[in-house]
């Protein structure tokens, strides 16, 4: 063997080691046989049943043992008992939809001290240090922008538009409305004429819907970023025979009939199945030591790669759009 070949081989061997080191984390797969607790805000809720469906699918793929446990009452204190149960029973990870942003902090700190990975999914806690990652539907900006895009499609990007929201103090809705206002700037021929508050009450939302029609007889479209509001608006539109276009955020099961009869053409919501699915992958990767809280950290689930933003937040992407084509399928789920 010449010294050159020796050198080449040595370099090649060294390179292989380096490449191996560099590649190793990429190919790291979650451990099989993990025990994962899936804790919803409350059981007996179709939305969370769908969320759990996604979680269980991930569990099957991950060969993990998953258990769906949670309270009957959607409050933080009621959830604490189940977080504790997961701690006691030696679970490796918890996927959690937090019913209370603050009250779970002490229980989650306890879980962390026991080395249990917590990933929130669907609803996050206020202190990012108490969990590793949060898998959330979409950023406020994307949700608000998508709703404006839907209404633009309905009304040909021109005319008066009003927003029928929940309570004036509802934090989520207010963040989306801010994002909507930004998105309106992209449609010079659309005018936002006002924000009305139905307080997530069916009767009050219907009254506010009629108020909009009275104040603006030439209204072209209404965006209702709340499940109660959009349902009330669709009901009123149908009974009044109004022509106004309606979109927003709604539950497929509640909106099915109105989509099929053309009262509403499209609306959106996030897909709880995806939230549960990705959240469970996050929990498994965390429990396998592959996912930390770090901006830019990657999480792969079902062939898709998601990237952590600041504070471990992972957004699924745009809200999911429902229309005549898919409403029947999703109405069966949630």
């Amino acid at each position, binding site marked *: 063997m010449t010294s050159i070949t020796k050198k080449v081989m040595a370099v090649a061997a060294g390179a292989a080691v380096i490449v191996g080191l560099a590649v190793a984390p990429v190919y790291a797969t979650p451990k099989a046989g993990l025990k994962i607790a899936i804790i919803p805000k409350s*059981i*007996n809720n179709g939305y969370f049943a769908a969320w759990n469906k996604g979680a269980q699918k991930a569990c099957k793929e991950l060969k993990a043992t998953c*258990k769906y*446990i*949670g*309270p*009957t*009452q959607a*409050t*933080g*204190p009621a959830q*604490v*008992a*189940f977080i*504790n*149960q997961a*701690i*006691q*029973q030696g679970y490796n990870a918890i996927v959690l939809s937090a019913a*209370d*942003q*603050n*009250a*779970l*902090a*002490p*229980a989650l*700190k*306890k879980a962390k001290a026991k080395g249990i990975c917590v990933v929130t999914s669907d609803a996050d806690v*206020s202190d990012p240090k108490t969990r590793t990652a949060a898998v959330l539907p979409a950023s406020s900006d994307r949700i608000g922008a998508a709703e404006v895009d839907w209404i633009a499609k309905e009304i040909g990007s021109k005319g008066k538009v009003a927003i029928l929201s929940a*309570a004036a*103090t*509802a*934090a989520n809705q207010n963040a989306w409305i801010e994002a909507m206002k930004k998105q309106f700037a992209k449609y010079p021929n659309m005018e936002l004429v006002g924000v009305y508050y139905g307080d997530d009450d069916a009767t009050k939302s219907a009254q506010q819907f009629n108020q909009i029609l009275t104040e603006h007889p030439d209204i072209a479209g209404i965006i209702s970023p709340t499940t109660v509001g959009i349902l009330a608006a669709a009901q009123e539109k149908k009974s009044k025979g109004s022509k106004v276009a309606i979109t927003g955020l709604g539950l497929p099961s509640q909106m099915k009939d109105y989509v099929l009869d053309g009262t509403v053409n499209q609306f959106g919501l996030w897909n709880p199945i995806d939230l549960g699915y990705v959240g469970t992958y996050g929990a498994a990767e965390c429990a396998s030591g592959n996912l930390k809280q770090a901006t830019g950290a990657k999480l792969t689930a079902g062939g898709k790669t998601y990237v952590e933003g600041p504070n471990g937040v992972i957004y699924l992407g745009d809200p999911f759009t429902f229309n005549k084509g898919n409403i029947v399928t999703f109405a069966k789920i949630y």
Partner: protein
Amino acid sequence: MRSGKFRLGWDKGIILLLVMLILFGGMSNNLFLAGDNINFIIGDISEVMLIAFPMALLIIVKEIDLSVASNLTLSSAVIGITWHGTGSMWLAVLAGLLSGSACGLLNGLLVTKLGLSSLAVTIGTLALYRGLCYVLLGDTPVADYPTEWTDLGYVPIPGTFLPWVIVPMVVAALLFWYVLHGTRMGRWLFAIGQGDEAAIFSGIPLKRVKLGLFVLTGFMCGVAGLAYTVRFASSSPDGALGYELLVIAAVLFGGVAIAGGVGTIWGVVAAVLIWGFSRSYLQLAGWDANALVIVSGLLLLLSVTIPRLLSKIRDAVAHRSSRPTGRGGAAPPPGDTAEHLSPAVAGHDQGSHRG
């Protein structure tokens, strides 16, 4: 003290039940008696236990307070806004205790000065105090409490697995036990429970005693409000929902007669512990939350029907052998009305124990 021979009354029966539950649970599930789990159970039952003591006294004197959970939450809200307003946790705690006591005082004044039924008054204040929580906090809970306080909620007492909240629980248990079973005040309470009129004739300041009990209940709601705030590191207006029913159920389960005049502190302690331990056991055994709700309902139903059935059987047996009933140290179990008791009022150790 004991005049009759030993008989298994309800309050002793549930202590036995508690011991059996702990032994059975410990043997069949090795997680059940782990230090962590005991720590959790004690925290979980703490607020209910703290309020169950004064509630037992109220029910013994034939009153009730349904506003306790709202009062607890209002105390927590007051702690929150005082902490935000002054930046002093000590002031906040003081304000919370004062708020609890003041709410209790309002209940007491409406009952004793206006002669209203405590059931009606406290249904009203249940809504009123809860409404005030929403007024004070709006929809933004207070959650920025200093860590050295919130750590008290989950870091155990050094060298043990016990949570800090066990300190006020034990102190309260001993104080309430002493007052009810060892003082003249305690005998007054049983006397009032057995008949207002007779109690007044024997010189008991009935209204002052009842007013005091309502204030005491409010104060304990303040203490429980502090425990709740620390345990969940936050104050939110929808806290402790439904706790009033848990407290009342535990008190009745503990052998305090809903008709008044009968009850013990150790019975209440055992009842709250049984509630906490059985819930934890079933949960660790994998029962789901819906089943837990049904089980706790059945437990309560059994706790009121079994003593009643037992006393009927006992009466029937006694009737057959034509001996007078309800004499000596053997008082009937809860569910029995005060008429079954010996009519002596403020007697020597009447009520300081139940046979």
